[in-house]
């Protein structure tokens, strides 16, 4: 009984942010925490929306072929609390993204953390999948 309460309370910040308390898609229905990716690329688009902010980056492989990846983050409200501002990331910025890959094999991932090349700052992405590790001290 107590454990169940802990589960709810631990995640409560995710559920009751700016979002109305409606239905939530499942992280696990879309992304695989066992398929971690680390992507380095150049930002092509940033969308500050509810329920999830999204951004897109061009990633070049060793052969120079470029793939555009979509990255899902948490809500803008959650991102603000994680230290983001609307201007933290802009088109043309170089970033490194750590995240969980989409289960359907598309070039899509759920970002856990984003490192901005310009400042070296590593920000958690307020992911609905959690942060997976202790914050930097």
């Amino acid at each position: 009984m107590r454990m169940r309460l802990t589960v709810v309370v631990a995640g409560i910040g995710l559920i009751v942010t700016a979002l109305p308390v409606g239905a939530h898609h499942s992280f696990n229905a879309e992304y695989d925490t066992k398929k971690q990716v680390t992507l380095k690329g150049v930002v092509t688009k940033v969308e500050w929306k509810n329920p999830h902010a999204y951004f897109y980056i061009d990633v070049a492989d060793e052969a120079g072929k470029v793939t555009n990846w979509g990255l899902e983050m948490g809500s803008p409200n959650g991102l603000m609390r994680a230290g983001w501002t609307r201007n933290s990331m802009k088109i043309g910025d170089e970033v490194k993204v750590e995240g969980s890959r989409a289960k359907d094999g598309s070039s899509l991932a759920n970002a856990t953390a984003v490192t901005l090349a310009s400042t070296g700052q590593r920000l958690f992405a307020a992911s609905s999948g959690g942060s997976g590790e202790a914050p930097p001290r």
Partner: protein
Amino acid sequence: MKPGFFGYSLVVAAAMAALWLAPVGAAAQRAPARNADARKASGPTPLTADGHPDLNGVWNGGMGGGGNLGDDAAENGIAVRFNARGGTPVNFERDNTLVRRMDSNRPLYKPEFWEKIQSLDQNGSAEDPTYSCMPEGVPRIGPPSKIVQTPAEMIFLYQGRNTFRVIPTDGRPHSPEDVLEGTWNGESLGHWEGDALVVDSVGFNDAGWLGIAGYFHSEHMHVIERIRRDGNTLTWQATVEDPVVLLKPWVMNARTVRLNPNPKAVLEEALPCSERDLAHLVTKEHH
């Protein structure tokens, strides 16, 4: 009428009801409060010039989440971890799926609709209107984030999706049924019964849900909301009548919200909602 129990949100309210098996009904007793101090109303209830409780204010002071965490958060980031059962989002989501459907107080549908409701719930990622950024509607949207009270009308503002409702309190009757256009929030009229504001709404469409578990309704739904102020707390309770789909009226659990302690608090503009996950979902899980 005292608040049913102290609830930060529908999620916590559902969880608490599930855990403490709060009794159902209009005269519901209080479940034990997590924080007894928080439930004590602080101070008297102010009145307006015409002698009614003054409901003016920003009523998001008691909701979980949000708030200003200061510079430490910006420096160190916020880590979100799931503390139970292996610390994975998978377990949290599955527990939450159950918890959100465990409230013993649920609408009682006619048996011919039970299969439809199960199907809507199981396919919620595709079927739930809020999942595709459509409105929550009344009563799913719950208590307002801000109330503006004038002698002739109440204006309810909701943070979610920049929603507003204008509720005349001038004694006018409802529009005739054949004139009413079905809407998500219905046509609402307000009047006072003692210290309670009673909001009566009809003229709904049938597109909205009452809750996450596939709880659809008909266009003949009639919703009665009762709102009381007690010091710096506001208690909202809704009753849903829908003789087309329900066996009896659904008396929803009351919810209590607190006045925002910042007298200069403003509501933030809600960002547009955009749905992009449906095309990538590989299972039907949702919570």
